[in-house]
């Protein structure tokens, strides 16, 4: 009883700020505009909309590519930090985590300064004769992927690091001594033992990528909407709250589907390696 009494403020808070809005959302998504009857018309509209379809696939594509890029960048970083001496490791970890302390919006504008039509990249590359036309690096998917990769890399590094730090460093040395070069050692030893960290990193990065808003809004522009930016447009531009609710539910289903996949993979790994 005391446990219930003590947790009641927290339970109340969750009820008010999380459960209630979700219920309202569900209600709006499945009701006719006048609120009189149950309907699936908002979802029908969503599935028949070309823009919404594009936004869905773009969200999936951008999030998967971002996740793959954070894996590719996260492993070398996490391995380097895990193997460094204490002070160097703390310094590198600080550099990796530092961007988390800067506002997402500020970072997105930072990328515009670098990648924009008159940005640093587009001034340097023609200058050294590599390109003649300026590269379109923002206001499209490339911009979103670059921005989100940088945004989410720390989560992948931290997840991998949590596992790699506890791996016996002699494992890799044993593999090297048995004739496996560093690349084969990575795929035969390091990767398999770090699967749990990889799975949690993938879950974090992917779910943050599909729900990211500021980065696609600023770097993607109006021509490459993602589900989140489309949702925002429905709420604040077209005032179509029912369509926005339907998009929100689609996003939630996407997330739940992905979590289920991730859990399944985790269980499979546990079964074979325990």
């Amino acid at each position: 009883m005391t446990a219930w009494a003590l947790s009641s403020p927290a339970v109340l808070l969750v009820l008010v700020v999380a459960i209630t809005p979700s219920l309202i959302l569900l209600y709006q998504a499945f009701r006719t505009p006048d609120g009189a009857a149950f309907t699936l018309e908002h979802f029908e509209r969503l599935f028949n909309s070309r823009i919404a379809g594009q936004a869905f696939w773009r969200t999936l594509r951008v999030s998967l590519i971002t996740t793959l890029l954070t894996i590719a960048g996260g492993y070398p970083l996490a391995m380097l930090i895990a193997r460094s001496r204490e002070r160097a490791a703390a310094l590198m970890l600080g550099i990796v985590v530092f961007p988390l302390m800067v506002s997402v919006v500020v970072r997105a504008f930072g990328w515009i300064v670098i990648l924009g039509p008159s940005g640093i990249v587009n001034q340097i590359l023609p200058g050294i004769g590599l390109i003649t036309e300026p590269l379109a690096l923002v206001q499209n998917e490339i911009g979103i992927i670059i921005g989100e990769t940088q945004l989410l890399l720390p989560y992948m590094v931290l997840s991998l690091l949590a596992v790699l730090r506890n791996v016996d460093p002699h494992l890799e040395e044993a593999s090297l001594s048995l004739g496996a070069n560093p690349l084969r050692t990575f795929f035969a030893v390091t990767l398999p033992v770090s699967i749990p960290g990889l799975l949690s990193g993938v879950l974090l990065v992917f779910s943050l990528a599909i729900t990211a808003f500021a980065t696609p809004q600023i770097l993607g522009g109006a021509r490459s909407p993602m589900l989140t930016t489309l949702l925002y447009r429905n709420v604040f531009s077209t005032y179509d709250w029912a369509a926005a609710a339907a998009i929100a539910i689609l996003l939630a289903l996407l997330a739940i589907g992905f979590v289920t996949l991730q859990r399944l993979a985790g269980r499979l790994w546990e079964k074979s390696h325990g």
Partner: protein
Amino acid sequence: MTDMTSPAGTGPAFAVEMRDVSKVFGETTVLDRISFDIRPGEFVTFLGPSGCGKTTSLRILAGFEQATSGDVRINGQSVSDMPPWHRDIGIVFQSYALFPYMTARDNVGFGLKMRRVPKAEMAKRVEEALKLVGLSGLGDRYPRQLSGGQRQRVALARALVIKPQLLLLDEPLSNLDAKLRNEMRYELKRIQRESGITTVFVTHDQEEAFSLSDRIVLMSKGEIKQAGTSREIWEKPRTGFVADFIGVDNLLPGAVEKDGDELVVRISPSVTLKTEICDFAPGSAVLVAVRAKDVILNPVADETATGLNVFAGNIIDVEYRGERCACRVRCEGIDQTLVALVASSHVPSGAVTLSFASDAVMVLTDDR
């Protein structure tokens, strides 16, 4: 000195040659110009307290560390620029470092797989290796399903199955309990003899070192203090550090003096010790080492005892060591207490007389 090969056809005279090998980390010198040779098939132990450089030496042999200077040759070939995966070296770590998601069989087969050995031959060699370490039938178990001793054997089989040029053992027995350790020690020796692979063993445990090794390299602070057979090191410690490390109980700092034609060692203003062999010039600061077993304890107090190496004293403590007891005796004019062994059945007390023969007095440099 670099060309140490024997007449043509018999292969290199040494399996391992280390020439002036140094290792410096930042401002710390971990190894200071180590030179040492290992004959083919030999079982050599690097022995010393932690931080003495023994593990660094092993890691340089394995290729995990680069020597700052000096040359390392394995079977006559300089390996300074050879990465670990080309060296053909088997290693057993203290933590065993078995791949946790592989069965014992896959662990043992790993090195053969990397060498692209055909499947059928691989299966045969893995079974042979498992049999050699006494694990036939347990090949399908995962490391977590094996006991500490069994993991140890898998690690050993994994290192041996590739028929390495050199087997390196990094404190492989330290994680086992005392009974298992003795058993594995015997097993290790048997397996090494049967396989005939040149072996370097690293440990801080002198008992392990003395019982296993053909030769011991005793190290301290990055230097080799003494290298030799167990018997040589035990019977003739060359320095004060060695005597201290192997557990000589009575170590007394002193200075060499001339007494007529003879050299004696003054260990306090009123006491000098007579010795048979003294390689030091008068005035040298030395360390006198006398084994407790060489100290004769006479349970009768002889107040008039004045001869050389004879002291009157009082027993202040008795330490039970099984068959013998170690008596700690405070003697007139000597700062340190002396230790003598007596049979546990007749432990004296109170005033006694200590004496030892002059050839029991070892005069050594004080490099502790």
